[in-house]
């Protein structure tokens, strides 16, 4: 049973169609990665789900509640972090969270413990008395996450939460997301940092020019697209006969001899690196170097998108 359902969604700005006939579902507890080039319609879709935008056509439901007709109920159920957001810089961290705790009508008696919990989760406990404008960008991003967790929402909408952050801050955000995933939150996250999405997301949807290109789990997408992966191998006793045998290993698409190595192209998810290594050993190859290329969501992204905007 899907927790979030978007059906035939159309969003129009004047004469520009930002989202056209978009449909997807997110089961409860899943982390859905929303991928697409700039201007593809990701933010627009997220804003519809966040009750900030009315669609021209179609429906969006969160937990069987229509986003358009029960906006107030939806607002209590979601946590939304926009791609760029400001913070009230004259406030301290604790005051900022108290402000939003009051805005979400959390009982005054419970606020202290709730704020303490979200500060601990986002590792900002030591910064509770720090003015918000003194925080680094990464910390502000974590403060944003703390803010959206105050009212314990079931569904989190995160629009580019790691954009513009340094590697350490990105890893910290990723760890928090993993924690939230373990807590059973349903999350929709858009990002350009694809390999990080691959580590967190259980499903992804690739959107371009307002249309959903592909949607499914990572394995499904790799399989459906027959994404290949290169393994660079240096074999000391390489012969033409061995090369022909390597090309016949199941799952190997092609073998190309380069001046200092052999480049073996395998079908993603059909042959894992360790299987290929075993097969090469079985053929009697004496391996000096074995280097699988990293799994690349970028390849999937580039194959599925042309950089078109809505």
């Amino acid at each position, binding site marked *: 049973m899907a927790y979030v359902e978007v059906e035939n969604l159309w969003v129009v700005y004047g004469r520009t169609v930002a989202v056209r006939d978009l449909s997807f579902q997110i089961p409860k507890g899943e982390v859905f990665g929303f991928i697409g080039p700039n201007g593809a319609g990701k933010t627009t879709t997220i804003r519809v789900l966040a009750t900030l935008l009315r669609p021209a056509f179609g429906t969006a439901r969160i937990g069987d509640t229509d986003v358009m*007709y029960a906006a*107030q109920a939806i607002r209590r159920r979601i946590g939304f972090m926009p791609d760029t957001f400001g913070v009230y810089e004259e406030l301290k961290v604790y005051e900022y969270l108290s*402000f939003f705790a009051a*805005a979400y009508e959390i009982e005054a008696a419970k606020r202290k413990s709730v704020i303490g919990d979200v500060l601990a989760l986002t590792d900002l406990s030591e910064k509770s008395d720090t003015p918000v404008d003194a925080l680094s960008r990464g910390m502000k991003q974590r403060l944003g996450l703390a803010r959206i967790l105050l009212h314990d929402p079931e569904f989190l909408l995160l629009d580019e939460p790691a954009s513009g952050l340094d590697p350490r801050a990105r890893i910290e955000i990723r760890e928090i997301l993993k924690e939230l995933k373990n807590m059973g939150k349903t999350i929709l996250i858009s990002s350009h940092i694809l390999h990080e999405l691959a580590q967190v997301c259980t499903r992804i949807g690739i959107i371009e020019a307002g249309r959903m290109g592909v949607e499914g789990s990572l394995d499904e997408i790799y399989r459906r697209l027959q994404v290949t992966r290169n393994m660079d191998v240096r074999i000391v006793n390489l012969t033409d006969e061995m090369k022909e045998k390597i090309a016949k290993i199941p799952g190997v698409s092609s073998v190309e001899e380069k001046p200092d190595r052999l480049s073996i192209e395998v079908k993603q998810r059909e042959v894992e690196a360790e299987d290929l290594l075993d097969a090469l050993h079985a053929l009697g190859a004496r391996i000096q170097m074995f280097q699988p290329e990293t799994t690349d969501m970028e390849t999937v992204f580039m194959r599925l998108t042309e950089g078109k905007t809505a």
Partner: protein
Amino acid sequence: MRILPQWSLPLLKKELVEQAVRKRTYAIRGVYAAALSVAFLMFFYSQYSSMSIENLEILGSGQFVFEFIVGLQFAGIFIFLPAMMCGALTLEKEHGSMAPLILTGMTPWQIINQKYLGRLVPMFSMLLLSLPLFAIAYAFGGISAGYLFGSAYLLLLACLEVGAASLMASAIASTTTTAFVLSYVLLLLCGMPIAIWEGSAGSDPFFVILIQTIPTIVFTAAFLGIARGCLLRNAFPRRRKSFLKAIFTQIDLVMNQANKYAWNVLLVRDRDTLPTDKPIEWRELTRKSLSKTRYLFRMLVAIELPILLITAFIFMESPFRRSMSEAVSALLFLLWPLAVLIISVNASGAFASERAGKTLDVLLVTPIPGREIIRQKMKPVWRLTLVLVIPFLTLFLVKAINEYGAGATWPTKGFSYKDPLAKAAEPMLYVMVSTAVVAIFLPMFSYVSLWIGLKARTRFRAILTTLTTIVVWCVLPILLVGVLTDFDMDRGSAGFLAVFSPLVIIPSIELDEFLVREEWVFVILTFLWHAGVFFYFRALCRFNADKYLGRVPYPFTGPRATIKPHLDM
């Protein structure tokens, strides 16, 4: 172009292209042309309607028409040019495009000159709109070639000077709003071309005008020089918050120092509170410098103290006492625009600043209802209004007391002053009516400003639109009364239109002694109209709060679309 790269003027080209693609450019030009033509036709009609075309009297009368057009053009330059020029550099700073601009091969002078020209060209195009009107005026005769060229030269010079002053403001300021205010303040230094034009009245030879305008040329050059100097120094200004914080820190220091001589009395102590159930109101009233009680108190003192001192001085000095009422009226005429300006800027900027700071979206996804967000957000504006009401009431009371005391000296008003109650009737009436004007007008202006601010995308646009709307609203009905009276409409019927202008009733109460003339119908209609405007905009803001703020309204009762958009299916 390639041979002489310094003449390629890329920034000027960009400025002109940007303005050419904006609909606003053509809208402003259209409005300017329409206003100029209508004003010209009105003047022309009032001058020549009684003359026949064969009448020789008409010959040589072109000078009046000419002077009227030149006067309008000066007004156009002073009204439009600062608004057009003030964003030339501040917009680059606000959009973060100043750094790439400076890092190009262009020198600061090239940037200044191209920006300057880029904003002057549209103004020149607006001035050219009056050429056909000049031709008509010239055809009537009475204008010497020297006067014609002298006036054109002075108009050009006024453009250059006002433009340079506004560009300087743009180079100094960090935001367009500040540059906008500063530009209009600097206009006080730019009145010389008009003074020379009015002084010469067509009689001075051209070379005399040339010599007289040397200070204006020097001023223009100085403004441009300062703009050049500030371009790099202020290219990356400190954030507005830090600037404001610094100002308030300095005020605190001075006040704390001064308080040592006043036995360290502390009227209001800042408390470290946390929000209870109205977080937006809490933040607005306790965390924003301008809304804090102690700063509001200081503002009250800054306005009220001079008023009390001036009135006390006049009260004590018997030679001035007779003109007490006039002095109080003069102070009220100063206080009204100040109060309207402060309230309008605050109300229109309330949400525009949230949008600019990108803090609105996160507020809108909370369950606080839209009208409650507006109510809490307007709390500091009401506080400010209350603070501003106090000087108004002071002045009303001072005038009433003075009139009560001086009542016996004005027996012509037809009141019997034997009975103290009867003697007090008129001053009391004055206080009541004046207080009612304040009670209706200030909230009305705040709601109109709030409505404009809710619809505007930037703080600058919100403030500019609000102030323009208020000025047009005040002036247009009065102009229409003038036009209709010129077109022989019955003065009483035409005067009815004055009810729609907020500007008419205030001088009417202060100077016209309407209470004596018993113009109650006019007063009641004015009150009804403005109270209606207040309630209309209040309802508009409250009932459409979610829509204006930019989120799905709740409860949403509209139908669901059943037909897919036909666009690009």
